[in-house]
């Protein structure tokens, strides 16, 4: 009675609805932290409570019946939802609907929504490398590639089968049919590696809101570039008046006081590129987030270093978040005096809604 594969069309339909829901919610996701921390290696888990069919139901229950030992007053379990926000609670055992999506799919939806062109890796990195790989065994081939062990094994097998093998005189004579050769396949591997270098101002004027914006923006940049390149590496640099390279954890959670010297970050970035990421082998994407309150005496040095940096990079993105104080004059300076206008992409991210436009500005060039 069981009929198979009717489910396929319903699944396809579901997938389509999920895609639609993600797409229509992408602006929301772009500006809220919902997806951060939901990214695994290949999959992103997206909460889509709106997919659940609404019904008249009871709200969260704060009581229930259980079974087991214990006296009144004894705790039986910890409510996992209680730690977070009070509002988002659900009944025990009831969860917000989540769907999983590959990073590629998510990036694709994001690209559709932001109208992002695919990136064309530039220069020689565009050329795919040809690589021979020995992947199997064939019956024909040049003698130089003869597989000694396999050949003899085959001969032994034949002799045992035909009864000519004598264990007292265990000599094995391969004949032509026994010969085995290594065979290879040629693969094309595009050598388009990329490195994303995030630089962030952690001076006193960068508050938590600003950092959250950076975090969100970098999540989406990661998603997009990961879908575009085979291998993507990420490096993090924080700076106030001095700069240093850190890991991602430190990057997002450090808060320091002190002034801002943008040049320090560019310097560390340049060194990093020189030492580890040669522009020959890598597509380099430096992103710099700051509130733009640079020390005035540092401006010139920063611009000069940027000039050096630019030829190595695909693009240089400068995101200026609104600081608590100060003028944020560096953005203007950059827009006026930037050495290579084509490569320098700048955006002012006033609040979380600005992320959308910033991403569009940064990634919309297809480079």
């Amino acid at each position, binding site marked *: 009675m069981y009929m198979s594969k009717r489910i396929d069309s319903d699944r396809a339909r579901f997938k389509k609805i999920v895609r639609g829901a993600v797409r229509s919610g992408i602006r929301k996701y772009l500006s809220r932290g919902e997806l951060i921390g939901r990214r695994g290696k290949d999959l992103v888990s997206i909460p889509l409570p709106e997919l659940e069919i609404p019904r008249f139901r009871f709200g969260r229950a704060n009581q*229930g*019946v259980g079974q087991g030992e214990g006296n009144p007053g004894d705790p039986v379990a910890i409510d996992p939802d209680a730690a977070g926000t009070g509002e988002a609670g659900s009944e025990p055992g009831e969860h917000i609907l989540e769907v999983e999506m590959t990073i590629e799919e998510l990036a694709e939806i994001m690209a559709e929504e932001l109208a992002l062109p695919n990136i064309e890796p530039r220069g020689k990195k565009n050329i795919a490398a040809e690589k021979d790989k020995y992947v199997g065994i064939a019956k024909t081939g040049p003698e130089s590639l003869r597989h000694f062990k396999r050949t003899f094994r085959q001969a032994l097998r034949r002799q045992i089968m035909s009864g000519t093998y004598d264990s007292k005189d265990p000599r094995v004579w391969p004949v032509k049919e026994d010969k085995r050769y290594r065979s290879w396949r040629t693969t094309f591997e595009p050598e388009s590696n990329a490195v994303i270098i995030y630089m962030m101002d952690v001076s006193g004027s960068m508050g938590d809101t600003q950092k959250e914006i950076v975090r969100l923006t970098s999540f989406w940049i990661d998603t997009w570039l990961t879908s575009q390149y085979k291998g993507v590496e990420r490096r993090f640099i924080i700076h106030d008046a001095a700069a240093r390279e850190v890991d991602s954890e430190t990057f997002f959670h450090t808060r320091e006081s002190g002034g801002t010297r943008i040049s320090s970050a560019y310097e560390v970035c340049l060194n990093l590129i020189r030492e580890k990421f040669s522009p020959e082998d890598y597509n380099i994407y430096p992103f710099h987030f700051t509130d733009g309150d640079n020390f005035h005496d540092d401006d010139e040095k920063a611009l000069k270093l940027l000039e050096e940096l630019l030829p190595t990079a695909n693009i240089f993105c400068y995101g200026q978040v609104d600081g608590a104080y100060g003028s944020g004059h560096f953005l203007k300076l950059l827009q006026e005096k930037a050495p290579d206008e084509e490569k320098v992409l700048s955006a002012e991210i006033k609040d979380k809604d600005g992320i959308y436009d910033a991403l569009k500005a940064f990634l919309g060039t297809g480079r």
Partner: protein
Amino acid sequence: MSHAALKFPTELKEIKYEVEDHARAFGLDFFQIIFEVLDYREINEVAAYSGFPYRYPHWRFGMEYDRLSKGHAYGLSKIYEMVINNDPCYAYLLKCNNLVDQKLVMAHVYAHCDFFKNNLYFAHTNRKMVDEMANHATRIQRYVDRYGTDKVEAFIDCCLSLENLIDCHWPCIRRREKEKPERNGPFNSAQASMPGNGSCSCEKGHDESSACSGSECRSRCSGCQGEEIEEGGFFSDDDDEPISPRRLRSKGYMEGYINPPEFLEARAKEMKTKRHEKKRFPENPEVDVLLFLIEHAPLKNWQRDVLSIIREETYYYLPQGQTKIMNEGWATYWHSRIMTEKVLKDGEVVDYADHHSGTVGGSKLQLNPYKLGLELFRDIEERWNKGRFGKEYEECEDLVTRDSWDLGLGLGRDKIFEVRRVYNDLTFIDTFLTEDFCRRQKLFVYGKEEKDPAWVIKSREFRDVKEMILGRLTNLGNPLIRVLDGNFENRGELLMAHHHEGRDLKWIFADETLVNLQRLWKRPVHLETKREGKRVRLSFDGKENEIKELD
């Protein structure tokens, strides 16, 4: 048949015959059962369609399949078996079960099937539901072909959103004289001219045109209030008696002064409108909201059909929701007896014990219906075997006497068969969950303060525990919502009321559900309920959700 043979190897067939014989010998009475062995993908698919091979196309089945597959892939859940209430009864076994599991599962299935066949609450269900579901699928597929997937699916979404608004006592109580087969009766004609009544223009007008707009309804309504009322026999059933305003006593010659005719006339008119107002629509609050919508919402023919399909399927599934604890308890009780007393071989004991303990084990925070039902059936059997029931036993306060109470009646077997015939979960718990049982099973009520992250045992009082379980089972754990007025404010709007018993609704969902309801009703819809103790009315007028405090 050869196809079925492929799906059901001889090895299992032998087990089936063995288990079936034992089940019959124990007195179980079931439909013919057809087993099929499926791999995990197939069983997930069948489960996504809740057991039926043909269902109408809808994305939620795909979603359910995804969920089940994921659960399976991560090893979170495994479906051992599925069984459908149908004659013949279809049951699916998971291919990778080992033989002990298959034995156990088959014994379990036979008991389920016995329950389906004999429990009173299943009596109304269609035993050819496999065919019926396939017919539903065909009908809906036809609408999809004609009107497009998006349109039909969106409508189904709306219907499903209201799916739980049914009358769970409907199979047992006739709330109406008849299911209104004839539409020409005086009562019906009267109702047909009521405003807000979507199906006002009787059968032939049903098609597209029956989507009668509010304004049309209103104009017809204002017409009704005039003189035609009397001629049309509007209040035909109980309003025949003439309206006669009370007269003051008077001597003949004073009559014209004491009871002036103009006054009497005005009074008569007043009484007439009063009586009219009393005549509500619906007459009594309607619990079966789906039925009310089918009959009165301005739907197109195909929409009405889709809604009836959804309603029919909901009523088919209703008893399974109503007897979860009993049904699973019964099946567990019998698989345990059949296995341990008859079928189990020495070498299989450990595997059996492992599987069985998995079935009846559970977490501290949730009552396991398998466990609860099993223990209750065992308890009932013991009590009726030993005569531990009735006034004398209840009133006995000497613990020692109670503990050793045994009249040797041996009525246990008969009693549990009677129980499986006439009870549902609610009455089952209400009747048989005793204080002793509650204590022995260590049941407790737990709770949590708003900001406190830990669930804490609140009480082990029998009353509290029982009240809580019964509360959860009432109306299948759904809020009780009734249609109060289909012509609210005399503007064809729909007013419903939630019978509030201490728990607030889930607000986000309530708003969205109203939106879906409005799509069917077309005019504004309202729901009265309580929010944090205050009476409120949620409304949706087609554009905006609104909330209004009533006190």
